[in-house]
């Protein structure tokens, strides 16, 4: 293990300055799958911050979903002690960032806590949309950037081409790029040396009033909320009474420390350092990413810039499949919320599905992650309703309403106009897909603003698109149309007027509230047909005919019929057949627990979920 610098009881100013000079705060930014997690793991291993056993147990096995999807949802921050070639020991704070467009704000707060960043580029994939988006973010924060070309061991690696892209697309010096294969452990030391030599140490005055930026927080079942901070000015120690500048909430500091996979308590942490604060805060929702912490009795003059309260943009209701599953779901949501401040929810109810929750998410991926965690970690079977964006309605009487739930959509006669959120999307593709992508975006009511060639056959297209179109299978379509080569990033722009309609699904004339969707009127027929077809495929034939209809108000716009079962009888049932038959009945009974009744019609869970699926699944 590298030698840890442990301050003596008396922390002199020289000491602190010595620490600051030997601190580097940095992030790794990359497009999905370009190897960020692997490189992080290698850096952690190379600095021996933890034993190999703990490494296996705690790093590699944390959160299956992250590993499987190759994305980081909950960032890990770690302080790596590194003895550099110049003989000095440095403390390299690697601040991990969530790797998806839904979490851009969190990424920006993490980057705000750094002085530099490693920009990781896959040696065969090259520059992608998120590479660009993250680079822009890093540049906004005036970070020193070191390009790292990863996966150089792959046969398809083309280092020269990537260097050209770094020069042409990113405007960075290709000669400064470090070559690595995180998987093979190649170039790891070069990266560590690069961090030490090319990135600047933090600035700040340990003697000034405390100014600490919250860039993340997580829930610890023993200690409550652990706030991840970067100290910009001053210092903090246990016993200090602190206040959050956004809401003036006051807490007493119980413990401060740094992360070395496990929490390592310290007597104090001070300007330039990255670490944690525990202050008896119950849930992570009581802290806000981007907020500034200062001392109550000696506050700093201004908070760190860039704070905003994050608002969910995608909404969906979650119901348990089991009719008695609400309590269990409620408990699971509560636990999940402890660690996920951006998840918001409230109780919701449906005629078809009973009690559940209306939830707000930062994006579609966030939604999927929450769904998956509920199903895996809490072993729940769920039904989700069609994701919706948040619409602004201006009513005839001049009042305005915000609607994200079809169940609450008012009588259209009372609506004067409806506004929907628009995004600015950046799509990077090989130029042979230009026509296909253009067609897709125009179909999705996109407006092509600009495009530019990044290299002689790669281009970036900028569109303005309604968010509602993007949360409906856009990303999957883009991926399949571009055979995986298309990459996508977005930011929310503004609200624009739209022509909205509420699409209802009727099953044998009963409206199934959980299947209603808010859709653009031009897309209503297509969506209605899609829903009817999917339901027809998923609802088993029953003893009577089942009519599935899509309707806007009283107007039927799509229809499918499931013909009645004509017979369902086992002809022979004697001695040996009886056990077999009973086992079949038992299996059916089990399956039935996953069914919902609408009138007399049994609808399986899969039918509710199928409506959300696209045709190319």
């Amino acid at each position, binding site marked *: 293990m590298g030698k840890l610098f442990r301050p003596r009881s008396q922390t002199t100013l020289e000491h602190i300055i010595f620490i600051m000079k030997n601190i580097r705060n940095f992030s790794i930014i990359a497009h999905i799958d370009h190897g960020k997690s692997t490189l992080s793991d290698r850096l952690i291993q190379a600095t021996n911050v933890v034993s190999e056993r703990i490494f296996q147990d705690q790093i590699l096995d944390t959160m299956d979903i992250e590993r499987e999807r190759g994305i980081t949802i909950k960032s890990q921050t770690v302080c790596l002690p590194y003895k550099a070639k110049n003989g000095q020991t440095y403390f390299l704070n690697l601040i991990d960032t969530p790797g998806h467009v839904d979490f851009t704000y969190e990424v920006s707060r993490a980057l705000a806590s750094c002085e530099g960043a490693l920009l990781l580029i896959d040696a065969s994939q090259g520059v992608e949309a998120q590479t660009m988006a993250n680079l822009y973010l890093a540049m906004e924060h005036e970070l020193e950037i070191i390009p790292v070309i990863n996966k150089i061991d792959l046969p398809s690696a083309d280092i020269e081409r990537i260097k050209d892209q770094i020069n042409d697309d990113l405007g960075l010096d290709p000669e400064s790029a470090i070559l690595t294969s995180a998987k093979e452990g190649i170039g790891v030391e070069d990266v560590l040396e690069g961090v030490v030599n090319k990135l600047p140490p933090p600035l700040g005055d340990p003697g000034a009033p405390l100014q600490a930026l919250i860039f993340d927080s997580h829930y610890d079942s023993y200690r409550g909320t652990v706030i991840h901070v970067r100290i910009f000015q001053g210092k903090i120690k246990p016993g200090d009474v602190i206040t959050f500048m956004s809401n003036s909430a006051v807490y007493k500091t119980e413990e401060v420390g740094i992360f070395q996979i496990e929490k390592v308590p310290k007597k104090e942490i001070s300007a330039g350092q990255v670490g944690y604060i525990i202050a008896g805060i119950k849930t992570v929702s009581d802290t806000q990413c981007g907020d500034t912490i200062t001392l109550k009795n000696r506050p700093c003059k201004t908070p760190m810039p860039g704070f905003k309260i994050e608002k969910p943009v995608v909404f969906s209701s979650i119901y348990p499949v089991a009719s008695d599953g609400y309590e269990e779901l409620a408990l699971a949501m509560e636990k999940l919320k402890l660690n996920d401040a951006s998840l918001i929810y409230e109780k919701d109810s449906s005629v078809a599905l009973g009690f559940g929750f209306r939830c707000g998410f930062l994006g579609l991926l966030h939604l999927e992650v929450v769904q998956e965690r509920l199903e895996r970690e809490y072993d729940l079977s769920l039904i989700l309703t069609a994701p919706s964006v948040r619409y602004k309605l201006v009513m005839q009487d001049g009042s305005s309403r915000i609607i994200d739930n079809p169940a609450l959509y008012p009588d259209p006669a009372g609506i004067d106009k409806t506004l929907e959120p628009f995004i600015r999307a950046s799509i990077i593709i090989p130029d042979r897909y230009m026509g296909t992508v253009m067609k897709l975006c125009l179909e999705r009511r996109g407006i092509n603003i600009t495009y530019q060639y990044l290299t002689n056959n790669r281009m970036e297209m900028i569109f303005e698109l309604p968010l509602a179109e993007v949360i409906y299978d856009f990303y999957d379509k883009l991926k399949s149309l571009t055979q995986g080569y298309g990459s996508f990033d977005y930011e929310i722009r503004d609200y624009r007027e739209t022509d909205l309609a509420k699409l209802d699904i009727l099953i044998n004339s009963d409206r199934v509230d959980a299947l209603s969707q808010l859709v653009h009127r031009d897309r209503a027929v297509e969506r209605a047909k899609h829903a009817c077809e999917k339901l027809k495929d998923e609802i088993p034939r029953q003893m009577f005919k089942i009519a599935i209809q899509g309707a806007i108000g009283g107007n039927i716009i799509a229809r499918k019929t499931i013909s009645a079962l*004509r017979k*369902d*009888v086992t002809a*022979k049932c*004697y001695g040996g057949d009886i056990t077999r038959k009973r086992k079949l009945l038992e299996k*059916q009974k089990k399956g*039935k627990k996953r069914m919902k009744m609408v009138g007399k019609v049994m609808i399986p869970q899969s039918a509710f979920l199928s409506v959300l699926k696209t045709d190319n699944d």
Partner: protein
Amino acid sequence: MVSSHPLLFDTLYFGGGTPSVLKPENIGRIIKTANGLFNISTDTEITIEVNPGTVTPEKLTEYKNIGINRISIGVQSFNDKILNFLGRIHSTNDAALTIRRARKAGFDNIGIDLIYGIPGQTKKTWLSDLRKVVEFEPEHLSCYMLTYEKGTPLNRERQQGKFKPVAGSLLAEFFETTMEYLTAHGYVQYEISNFAKNASKISRHNFKYWIFSPYLGFGPSAHSFIEPRRYWNCRSVKKYIENIKEGRLPIEKKEILSKKQRMMEMVYLGLRKTDGIDIDAINKNLGINFHQMFAEKIKQLEEDGYILRIQSGTHCALSRKGMLFLDSIAPMLMIENWG
């Protein structure tokens, strides 16, 4: 197990496979042995299954002499094309001959098995089968809808698309036609697929399966049932023989039915019979109030014409329309959350 039965047995059944490959004298020995070991009533129904074309008049007479009083003949169809499709080795002539011979040998309780819903079959050809079979005036008729069992050559061919199975709507018509035709010709339907000339000619043996009576099965794969236990013998003939030789019961597996499982079986099997579920019996057996438990369901099913309450409400049975949907309806009368 063998010696400890206080039960009085009143049926013996040789079937499942081709028991007629045994010499009648050997069957006679089995009957004698059984009589020595079990308490068997004097008017026991003794049935043997035979395939057309496998029995001579002599053999039939011998059957009669050793005490067999009921013959079940696997005719399946009176159409040679269909017999061929089913892979049967006999012809329609063989079938007619066997029925006549059985009569001649003095059997006054003859059962005939037919199958319908065979690819290529039309309502007309099926009706013609029914017409022919009725001419022989059998005491008992079993008419089975063709089913495709997993792992059978027929099912494989179906999956390979070698033929087109009969549509569900046509099968339903066949089923209804069968009920109508046979009732019109003096037969009483007493179970989904079974008809008798009169109440005394129902298959006493088969009926026991549906009323939860105890039975003992001998031979490979045979099932035994003594509520709440069910046993079945090992499939392999070799293993079966080995077990017997070593003085062990050749049981492959047994199950002890929970209350919930008993209920499932009683409801499912009860609804197969035209006299339906004996509500008093099920209430007493399970300690429940069946009517109360399913009042709403039963009312709805009655309104929709699937269920009848018969014998002044003491029995709950399926209507003809309901019988077509036995497998859908039975689960509605079973409890979901029950130990």
